[in-house]
């Protein structure tokens, strides 16, 4: 909830919209129950409750919400862009290995290096069981499924260190199955690719 990249920021905004909407609907329902409780007995219009409140109201709200969610989801997808950086993440019980398209042969363990301010595609795979790649402050999560490669788009606004987690339960070492994302400035990234920095 402290976003440091565009993907996480979009989802954080989505959350606040959802929270406000949900609170409003909850108050509406609570208010209706209070009203129903105090109302003197007598016939009421069935249509008003069932058709308007029960059918029409949720349909309208949900359609709007769904459209919003879909548009956001499309924006978060990995699409071709000019300054794209490609990295690989392979999970196993219980560590992470990262490889880099721009520096073939270079492998880092439990540390993912990326340039800040550029979109990064992470190709996620697994060597054993199901894991999940998650850097909460940068983007949503995506699973590492044996035999499949999933691609997650993330981007860090500023250089810095961001905590990464495995988010799918994977046995006794689950708690400490973490990694760190290190976002470099342009200069630092070039230095990393040249192998001058660990």
């Amino acid at each position, binding site marked *: 909830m402290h976003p440091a990249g565009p993907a996480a920021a979009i989802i954080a905004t989505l959350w606040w919209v959802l929270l406000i909407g949900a609170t409003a609907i909850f108050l509406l329902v609570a208010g209706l129950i209070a009203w129903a409780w105090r109302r003197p007995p007598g016939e009421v219009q069935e249509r008003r409750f069932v058709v308007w409140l029960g059918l029409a109201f949720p349909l309208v709200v949900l359609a709007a*919400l769904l459209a919003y969610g879909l548009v*956001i989801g499309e924006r978060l997808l990995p699409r071709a862009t000019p300054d794209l950086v490609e990295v690989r993440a392979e999970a196993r019980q219980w560590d992470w290995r990262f490889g880099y398209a721009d520096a073939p042969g270079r492998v880092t363990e439990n540390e993912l290096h990326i340039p800040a301010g550029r979109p990064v595609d992470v190709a996620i795979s697994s060597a054993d069981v199901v894991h*999940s790649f998650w850097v909460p402050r940068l983007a949503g999560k995506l699973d590492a499924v044996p035999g499949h490669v999933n691609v997650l788009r993330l981007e860090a606004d500023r250089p810095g260190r961001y905590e990464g987690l495995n988010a799918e339960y994977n046995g006794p070492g689950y708690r400490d199955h973490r990694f760190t994302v290190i976002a470099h400035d342009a200069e630092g990234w070039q230095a990393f690719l040249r192998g001058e920095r660990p």
Partner: protein
Amino acid sequence: MNALRRHRALSRIWASEPGLRGWFTTVNHTDLGRMFLAVAIFFFIVGGILAMLIRAQLASPRSAFLGPDHYNQIFTMHGTIMMFLFAIPFFEGLAVYLLPKMLGTRDLAFPRLTAYGFWCYVFGGSMMIFSLLAGVAPDSGWFMYPPLSSTIGAPGINSDFWLIGITFVEISAISAAVEITVTVLRYRAPGMSLSRMPIFAWYALVTAVMILTGFPPLILGSILLELERAFDMPFFQVAAGGDALLWQHLFWLFGHPEVYIIFLPAAGAISTILPVMARTRLMGYGWVVAAAVSLGVLSFGLWVHHMFTTGIPHMGLAFFSAASTLVAVPTAVQIFAWIGTLSKGRPSLHLPMLWLLAFFATFVIGGLTGVMVAIVPFDWQAHDTYFIVAHLHYVLVGGFVFPMLAALYYWMPHFTGRKTYFKLGNTAFWLIVPGLHGTFLLLHWAGLLGMRRRIDTYESGQGWEAINLIASISGFVMSIGFALVLIDVVINAAVAIRGSRDPWKAGTLEWAMPTPSAPYNFASLPQVTSREPLYDAPDLPVRLARGEGYLGDPSRGRRETLSVEIATGAPRYITVFPGNTFLPMLMSAVTGLFFLGMLLKTYWLVPISATGVICCALYWVWSLGGTTREGALPVGHGPELLTAGEVADPPGWWGSIFLLLANGTFFGSLLFGYIFLWTIAPNWPPPRYAEPGPDVALAALAGAGLAALGPRLRPGTGLLLLLPGLGGLAWAGIRILTRVPDPTAHAYDATLWVLMGYALLHLAVALVMALFVAARGRTGHVGAIIGGEPRIARLWSDYAVLVSGIAVLAAALPGWLT
């Protein structure tokens, strides 16, 4: 005959045996319903204790109370027990107890099956408890994702307990579901048309059909995973053509309907209790029924929302996201119909109503967070965090436990025949409800701050310590509340004063009897003309006790009830129920040996116990019906009806239909798995396809033709055609297996073995049933000569022909296409 003498005569006929023996031989739904509920509550206590251990562990950072190995077993078993050993059996118990009474009949359609299901539940549940006590409980999370739960991640016996124990318990879910479906459709009071059914019966019907179509994918998944673990058949191992995602699809294909299987009975209880509490009738009965049915249908279209983060293409996700939000609509229809009911009535704040208000407050929040996680991008963040944990506890506790507490306090006078006198329940309420919100409300936030579910402990300084401490304290407050409820129930059952019949002034038939109810429910069966028979005729209970309804004459000295036409509720035939017997318990114990043999890998026990189960089953069915024709018998009020043995559609035919529905879903899931692997799994195609020659095609076609024709001819010639027909199909299946001799080579070979095994099993069932009916005919059993038994056997042999034909075709198809 006066009311008292009728009561004594009927009690002699219907009562279970006295003393300890009675517990094991009873087939009466009142007894078994209570036993189901008691055992489910026992498992709720066990699951609750595990929850307290979890909260104790998480109360403070870096806790050393439990290590990860114990913690992993505990959270896995907490989820497993609450889902499979508490929620579903509690619904079954409630339905088993209430349905015949609400529907105005004397027992469920298959009394011995109720008992069989109950004992399977007890024995299977005991296996799970044993694993917990022995420290070898499953530890891969309650949804058991392979490869973690398979031999790669869990080489020990832990996962086997889950796969085998839960499958054993599922027998009880399937048998209860068949039972409930047939009962609601065919066993009602005369005149109770579908539109006059109590609303709870509608919900029970929808739930039962959902169990029949929702559980088979899980049972299939468990069998496949156990085959992989025990015999190396690589369904989920990607290197040999399997796919871990197949399990996730099969599991959630069950797992999401499961959520509604839990919620719908609760909604049924609400729709029953709330109008009574508001002293009015339910608003929009038709709308509510439609909402329940559409919930049931929609819930099968949204399993993928548990898999939004597995890398499925975004447009695919969009479909399931839409379905997931759409499911909120029928839920909203019900919620607003209930609020409308409140507004037209005069609600009063009895304890059941209090629990319903807690339901509204909690479930609406849970529903709204549910809509949030149905939105794909939000789920990418929230998935597998404490946000989900909080959401699901709001939905399950708010949507199931609270309404069930309302139900408990509402029907307790019915169970005990006493007034709820002590007011401990109100104190408990004020501990449980704030306790629940205190535990889970803030945990939503912890999840958004990055607290993952299933971590055994955490470092300080992440902003979650206070939230977790509050959650743990509230959790313990809630547990104290549940303990008070338990004490309250025990005290009220034991020492409270005798109450009046129908204390809530309800209109449904379960209150038209003295409480606690007599084993026969109704001294005579009522003629129903509306949804609330007691509102129309307040003196109905007295008239029924005087024998003014149907079947009020106990002189035939056997357990009789009426079976009605589905739509109109017009009486059709008399069903004669079996009496008390050890057979169901014996058969479930032998079934248990079968599962135990699988579990302990003592495979010599498996065929022996399987034979034992078959013998029990044959003995079971043999004892039905007699050898003398009775013709039409008087039932009171004019019409004379045949007994079930002499009609074309006896209860067994209807039971078979719904069992085959579940069975067909199982087979469908198997085909789904096959197609899924074929199209999605990475390491396909296999090295080579089995390419059955024309001999196989010929044998299968000729076999199918003969076996389909045989049962439609005269019994003697029919059998002469059927036997070679079944043989031809079996030969085709075995020929295919000789082309894929090693089921461990590739997921394709393994799948073919399962397909053919399934076909051969059903061919064998068809064979046994045909021979059985022939033997019944020769020994002069009415049911096999003029009754429906040949039709039942035909149903099963047609099914066997169908599935083995499809299986052979499915096996041959990839070879032909490439």
